[in-house]
């Protein structure tokens, strides 16, 4: 901690206490969030790595709470006067006393879920350029069709220092490495775009030949089927979702509705269903900060609460919302480590980390497909959206197949699946035993952007609406 506070941010423990004391003039809780993030990127386009750069973001956010009311200000300078000014600005929230007070978190013995075996600061940029070019070659070698390939390699390291009015000091060094590929293939006047990505909280050790193989194989997977794909006839039908990236549906359609702020304000469709059955027994839905190297993992959340594994739904019963400190105090529970923010410029709010459903016991993906007479198999979703109040969601199908009499037949694409979160949850008919966490560059955009991940086993949901011709 000493290294972070004094050497990185130039503030002493005594100064931290002074700033917090200033903030407390306006409320009953004050915390500080110091951040220095160095972000680097390199871009491959037209077979050349001819663009790149780095970006330094530095500052401190000061939050004052008066009950559930928030005052927030930040400074891009960490000299004591600027920080005291920010504390005074945040303290402007002062008013009548709040109805509850934020309390401490409970320390956990969770080991750090990430580390840099090779520091990104030691990156040889020429070697990284060569790696990107090798990735492009690997994609082209797997495919006979002409293609345009763009690949972005980015990496960042964030030094974080948090201090609060309970005199708790926590610090973290968060690495994040990501590679995203957009490949556009042409065949007989038709084009097909593929987006593949991987992102991990780790160091330079992620840059390997095996990652190239993984990305290149996925970029060209079933490409002929995609060229042949068309829109199916729309209607209501059973949908089988592939393991892995389909977890985004879990994130959007269910996870957001479990975030405690939406429930505290009565906005979520689940706000009066705690302790009730929300899906069939045997189904458990988790939000987890402890998966080693996962993009959604955190040693501490952005309020200094230890990262942890939270069961939102256990054996079909709604057991926990996702809490930041404010919501935890409101509900009288321990914070779950979900208080997150995009940067020091934002106050923390309840956010997901890595959200997934545990494996089920209903056989394999083939068993699920085999049980459907007429429906859709979705291999890959793109963006989705949900209305929290109603629970209505829409997801775009990048790639999939018709299911006819238990077999995959015609490839389909460019359609939406729409449904309602609670109804879809209740309509989950079968869950296979093949949970897969997807390590793509998932970013959640609820007011602020934060890195998340998601996963799911193959599932069969009855009765979703598929848009089509």
């Amino acid at each position, binding site marked *: 901690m000493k290294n972070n506070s004094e050497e990185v941010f130039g503030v002493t423990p005594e100064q931290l206490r002074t700033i917090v004391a200033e903030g407390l003039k306006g409320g009953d809780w004050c915390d500080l969030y110091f951040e220095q993030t160095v972000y680097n990127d390199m871009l491959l386009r037209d077979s050349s790595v001819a663009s790149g750069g780095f970006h330094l973001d530095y500052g401190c956010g000061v939050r004052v709470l008066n009950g559930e009311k928030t005052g*927030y200000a930040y400074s891009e300078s960490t000299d004591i006067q600027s920080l005291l000014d920010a504390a005074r600005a945040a303290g402007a929230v002062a008013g009548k006393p709040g109805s509850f007070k934020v309390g401490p978190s409970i320390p956990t013995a969770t080991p750090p879920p990430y580390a840099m075996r090779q520091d990104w600061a030691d990156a040889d940029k020429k070697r990284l350029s060569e790696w990107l070019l090798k990735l492009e070659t690997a994609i082209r070698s797997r495919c006979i069709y002409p293609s345009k390939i763009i690949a972005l390699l980015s990496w960042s390291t964030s030094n974080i220092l948090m201090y609060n009015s309970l005199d708790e000091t926590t610090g973290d060094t968060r690495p994040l490495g990501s590679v995203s590929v957009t490949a556009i293939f042409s065949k007989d006047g038709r084009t097909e775009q593929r987006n593949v990505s991987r992102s991990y909280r780790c160091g330079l050790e992620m840059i390997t030949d095996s990652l190239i193989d993984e990305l290149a194989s996925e970029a060209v997977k079933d490409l002929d089927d995609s060229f042949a794909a068309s829109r199916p006839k729309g209607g209501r039908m059973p949908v089988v979702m592939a393991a892995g990236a389909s977890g985004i549906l879990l994130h959007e359609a269910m996870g957001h509705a479990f975030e405690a702020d939406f429930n505290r304000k009565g906005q979520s469709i689940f706000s009066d269903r705690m302790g009730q059955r929300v899906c069939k027994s045997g189904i458990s839905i988790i939000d987890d900060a402890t998966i080693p190297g996962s993009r959604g993992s955190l040693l501490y959340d952005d309020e200094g609460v230890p990262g942890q594994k939270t069961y939102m739904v256990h054996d079909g019963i709604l057991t926990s919302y996702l809490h930041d400190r404010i919501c935890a105090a409101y509900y009288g529970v321990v914070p779950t480590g979900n208080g997150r923010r995009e940067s020091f410029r934002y106050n923390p709010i309840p956010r997901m980390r890595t959200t997934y459903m545990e494996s089920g016991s209903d056989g394999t993906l083939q068993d699920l497909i085999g049980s459907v007479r007429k429906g859709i198999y979705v291999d890959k979703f793109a963006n989705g959206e949900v209305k929290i109040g109603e629970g*209505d969601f829409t997801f775009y199908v990048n790639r999939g197949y018709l299911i006819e009499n238990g077999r995959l037949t015609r490839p389909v694409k460019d359609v*939406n699946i*729409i449904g309602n979160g609670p109804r879809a949850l209740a309509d989950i008919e079968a869950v296979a035993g093949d949970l897969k966490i997807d390590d793509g560059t998932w970013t959640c955009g609820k007011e602020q952007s934060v890195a998340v991940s998601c996963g799911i086993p193959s599932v069969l949901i009855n009765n979703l609406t598929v848009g*089509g011709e």
Partner: protein
Amino acid sequence: MITETEKTLAAECLEYARKAGAQDCRITLTKSTEDLIATLDGEVDRVTRCADRSMNIALFVEGRYGAFSINKLERDTLRDFISRAVDTVRMLAPDEYRVLPAPERCCHTALTGRELDSYDEAYQEVSPEDRRRRALEAAVFGSGAPLPRNLELISEEGEYSDSEYDVYVIDSQGLECRHRETSFDYGVEVTVQDPKGNKYSDYWWTASSFLRGFDPSDCGMTAVRRAHAQFGARPARSGKYNMVIGVEVASRLVSPLLNALNAYSLQQGNSFLVGSVGKKLFSDKFTLLDEPHIKGESGSKLFDSEGVATEPSAIIAGGEVKRYFVNTYMAGKTGLQPTIEDAVRPYLPGTPGLDRNGLMQMCGNGILVTDFNGGNCNPATGDFSYGISGQLFQNGEIVRPVNEMLITGNFLPLWKNLIGAGSDVRRCAGKLIPSLAFCEVDFSG
């Protein structure tokens, strides 16, 4: 905002870059402040004070290019940062098309940043008490305003903010331009409940560059009316319908066209409008202009991020595609004529006096779309599928709400089937797109 000292510092950074070995450099200095008051159920919930500054540095070194940014604007830190940045650029591959724009294409008229009258001096006089008052006065919750009898207001989240923004751009070829603007914004989201306990949420917002034109008083009730209008929504029968799309969401159908006309998409073959300039692809009724110089409105701009001068132009006229958007780099790569990098203030002119009600009367029967929920457009083909909610209408009158429906099709035939455009644009929106009417749209649900 940006001081003479900071402008001098930016000029010094050009010199640091030159001394470190850069042949050319562009410095973009931005500063902004924002004060925000969020309310929850008629009470102040969050007070936020934001003050940002950033320096973006584009470096051109021995035929190579890199982009960098930093928010620690101290002289020694900047000198070291730029030196390391130049070293980094040297490790990248050469790219002959990475050059600064020709000086004659650049803006020479944005000297003070106030040429477009988008800065309100009254901003400086807004007090913390003013902000609280405006935020609280706009709230419906607890105000005693009459609500529909069958509606319970569960939650109301409002957000008032005022901000100023200042950007200053210089480059090593002598470019110097500046833009300043203020903005006053209010947005609100409500969650309401019907007698059966079903929840519905909706939103509304307004914004203005000037305090005197800023009136958020009806936002909350508008959001409540929109949510109430969805009570009992269910899908309509799948099929082809006339579609009227409300002014609040109509720009969603224009954005994919603008993306497809950008040279980045064209060069990658990721555009359904490759080779489209000079071709009549759309309805006669479809004209889309770029109006970057409208005075007194947020979003108007005299220059783009390269410092290239903007100018009013036709993007689509009478259904014929008139232009692409090609920045300096893409002009080199594609051989296309360089332009500004993107549309600044797209404006779709329609029939004077016509709004969504008039368009529904014109169509007779169809579906009025008032919100989107997810969906996507394939940029290479123009195929789209979007989730929607809105109102079924017959004989020009609303019959009942619809939700959980999709519209599916392709942007080329969709815009060929434009049958009407209103004149009800919202000046507070970034794109000035009015309510629109299309025929033969596939709905499913």
